[in-house]
Structure formats: structure tokens, C-alpha cells
């Protein structure tokens, strides 16, 4: 495969925004193009989960491409639920690596706060298959079922995964684009109300607006793509072999490591999909950083802190940077680029780093991506 570089990256601030989803994605796209120093691209790939239901927008790839002044380049929308941003990146990579296009712009975003929380939860729950949704299952409910089983199998307590929320809020404290710039204490997390026990409010990522963008090119720059993996799983949780590990992440990680020619021991830091705090722990095991059942110990012991031995989610993750569902997978990669370039300001990991890994979960872990980047400097 041809070498592909991440020539420019951009984001909007995440949180409750007054702008439309199109405005947000155009802002992010312009930021990435400006960062790369380009005015024209050869193709645009747009990742977004449900603009029709959240915002009443459709034909969104064409609208964004028009607003960016990029007509007549090809404009394509990609959707894989909450990993749509990472999927848009995947498709942009394939387009560039094919040799058919040189400069390809991936943009991802979501505008979720324009509807009520009840309505947003309903839209998100539609990724759950009907045979499980008919019981009133929501994403937090399924995550709670997974978490309780993990606690049973591996001895984790509620306080142990509360450390993930504390860490990620601390990491996002000075992040200019984060939804939350607010520290939370262990007591704050433990004393927050249950959403679906054992998961509490502070274990769940917020409903956010925002967008991210990356300009891919075959021209050399500091950060290049090293590995790309994508795996799927049975849609119904009840059809799976394990409740405490996601096969889609494991498959994606295996593909990405194989392509990169490296292993988990070579990774310097990671951005993992922590829509629910225990998912960061499970993700850290599924991509091979820690043995099964040991990820929670690493989190509780501070190994995954920004200044720890193995930093995870220096951006604050979905939990604190925010989770506009379509945008999150691409925002993780933007953070990885900033960290590898040494441009993460107050949240910069204090060491030289060569490889970064991102992991994005689509739906209830039915369509997951793992991406590995290399710092070529």
C-alpha cells in the first residue's frame, strides 16, 4: 500500500453548540485544509450517524462539499453508527491509497443537542436489534449488563472504573475543544446517580455537538498511517460468545497490528472509545495493552494516566472531550496527530512518542476500527 500521511487536522469545540451540523463540519473541514496548507482536494468523505433524525439534514456530503467550495469533487457519506468518523477515515485512506486520488478530506460530525435527551437516547437506541430493544434496553443498559458481568468475572468494583472518569476529566481540563473543562473527584463519580446500575451518570459520555476533520495526502508530513483494521460482530449481544470482550475490536486490532508490523508493546499511547468508562478498560484489553481482566487494575493504579507508563485518552476521551457520535472516531485521530506532533499544549504527554493507536466502537461494538499512526520525525 502507498504511504499515506495525515497532512492536516482540525476540530470544532465540542459541547452544546448553536450552529448546525453542516456549519460544524464545514468549520472542521476548513481547519484541516488550513492546517495542511491546501485549498483544493480530490475527494470528500463525510462520517455522520443520523443527521436526518438529529437535525433533519440529508444529502449531507453534497451540502458540505458545496459549502466548502469544493464542487465538483466526489462527495460520499459513510455511516457505521458511533464509529462513523473512523469509518470515513478508513474510506478516505482506501481512496488515497488506491492511487486514484491524492488529497482526500475526511470530515465527521454530529449535532445531537437540537433534540431532547429522551429523543437523543431513542435515536441512539435504534442501533440495538429489535429483539433486545423491545425490553426497553438502551445503550447504557447494555453497557451496564456488560459491566456487571466483567465485575463478576474479574473482581472489579464500582470505585475501580470510576478512576477512568476522574482521569479523563483531568486530561480535558485545559483542552480548548473539550465539552467539559471540569475536574471531577472519585466521590463525585461514585455519588452520581445511577443511570443503569452499576453505571452512574459520570460513567457515561455526554450528548454533544461537534466535528473533526483530517486531510490525507501522499505528500510527506510528520504523521503517517501505519495500520488500519476494521471488524464487525453479531448485532445482538445475546448471540456473542463473550459479554466482557468485543470481538470486533480484537479483529480490528489484529488487522491493524499486522499491517503495521508492530505489536501492542510498541504503542506509545492510545485514544480508546470510552462512551462508558468500563469500555475504556475492556478496549485496553481487546487491543492487547493488558491481559484480560487486568485493564481495570491498570486504570486504578494510574498506569493509564497522562504521565503514567501507558497513557490512555490524553484528550479526555469521549467521556470529557465529548461524544458527538459521528465525530468521535475522527476526533480521536486528530488528538493522536496533535500528540505525535507535540502540539497538545497543556495535555501533551511528557515524552517522545513513535506510535499512537485509536479504537472506535460503532453501535454496541458491532463495527469497530483500530488505527495506528507513526511519528516519522
Amino acid at each position, binding site marked *: 500500500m502507498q504511504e499515506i500521511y495525515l497532512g492536516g487536522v482540525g476540530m470544532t469545540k465540542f459541547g452544546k453548540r448553536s450552529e448546525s451540523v453542516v456549519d460544524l463540519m464545514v468549520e472542521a473541514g476548513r481547519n484541516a485544509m488550513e492546517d495542511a496548507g491546501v485549498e483544493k482536494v480530490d475527494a470528500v468523505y463525510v462520517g455522520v450517524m443520523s443527521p436526518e433524525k438529529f437535525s433533519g439534514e440529508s444529502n449531507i456530503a453534497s451540502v458540505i462539499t458545496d459549502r466548502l467550495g469544493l464542487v465538483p469533487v466526489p462527495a460520499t457519506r459513510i455511516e457505521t453508527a458511533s464509529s462513523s468518523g473512523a469509518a470515513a477515515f478508513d474510506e478516505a485512506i482506501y481512496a488515497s491509497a488506491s492511487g486514484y486520488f491524492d488529497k482526500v478530506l475526511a470530515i465527521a460530525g454530529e449535532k445531537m443537542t437540537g433534540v431532547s435527551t*429522551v429523543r437523543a437516547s431513542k435515536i441512539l437506541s435504534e442501533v440495538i436489534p429489535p429483539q433486545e430493544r*423491545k*425490553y*426497553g434496553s438502551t445503550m447504557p443498559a447494555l453497557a451496564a449488563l*456488560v459491566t*456487571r*458481568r466483567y465485575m463478576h468475572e474479574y473482581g472489579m468494583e464500582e470505585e475501580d472504573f470510576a478512576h477512568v472518569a476522574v482521569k479523563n476529566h483531568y486530561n480535558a481540563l485545559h483542552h480548548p475543544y473539550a465539552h467539559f473543562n471540569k475536574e471531577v473527584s472519585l466521590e463525585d463519580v461514585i455519588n452520581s446517580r445511577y443511570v443503569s446500575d452499576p453505571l452512574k451518570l459520570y460513567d457515561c459520555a455526554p450528548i454533544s455537538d461537534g466535528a473533526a476533520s483530517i486531510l490525507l495526502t501522499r505528500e510527506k508530513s510528520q504523521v503517517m498511517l501505519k495500520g488500519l483494521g476494521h471488524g464487525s460482530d453479531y448485532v445482538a449481544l*445475546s448471540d456473542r460468545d463473550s459479554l466482557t470482550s468485543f470481538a470486533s475490536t480484537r479483529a480490528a486490532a489484529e488487522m491493524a497490528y499486522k499491517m503495521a508490523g508492530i505489536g501492542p508493546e510498541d504503542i506509545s499511547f492510545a485514544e480508546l472509545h470510552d462512551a462508558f468508562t468500563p469500555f475504556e478498560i475492556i478496549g485496553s484489553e481487546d487491543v492487547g495493552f493488558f491481559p484480560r481482566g487486568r485493564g481495570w487494575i491498570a486504570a486504578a493504579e494510574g498506569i493509564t494516566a497522562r504521565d503514567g507508563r501507558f497513557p490512555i485518552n490524553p484528550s479526555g476521551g469521549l467521556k470529557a472531550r465529548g461524544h458527538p457520535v459521528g465525530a468521535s472516531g475522527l476526533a480521536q485521530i486528530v488528538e493522536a496527530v496533535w500528540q505525535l506532533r507535540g502540539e497538545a499544549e497543556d495535555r501533551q504527554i511528557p515524552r517522545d512518542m513513535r506510535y499512537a493507536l485509536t479504537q472506535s466502537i460503532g453501535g454496541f461494538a458491532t463495527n469497530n476500527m483500530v488505527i495506528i499512526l507513526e511519528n516519522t520525525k
Partner: protein
Amino acid sequence: MKGRILTHTSLRVVPEGYSSPLDICFVQTAKGTFLAYSPKNSKVRIGQRVTLKKQGKHYYAAERKFLGLI
């Protein structure tokens, strides 16, 4: 169908049309794993032996002695 509870939760923030708390569980049986409403008349725990009873489109889990109450 007889089985054991694999995991369970009590959902406090429920979707429209459902009452809080909403207690659901996964039950492992010889025919596979099923989502069900949790037992109402006993403290729910992982590993608990239950029987699944289908009413309408839903499974309900209960200890055998409480099956008649579903």
C-alpha cells in the same frame, strides 16, 4: 426453559413508554442466551437458577417457586 442469570441491571433512566426501574437480565440456557425481565420476587444475582416463561413477546425470568406469579 431453565437457565442461570449471566448478568443483570436495573435501568433507572428508561425510554418513553416504560416505567422506572426497569429490571432486565441475560439468562443462559441450553438453547442459548436470552434477554428477559428480571425476577421480581427474589434478590437477583449472577448464577441464580431461573426459569424463563414467555408471555406475549417477552421472556420473564423467575425462580421456579415464583413462576405462577408471572
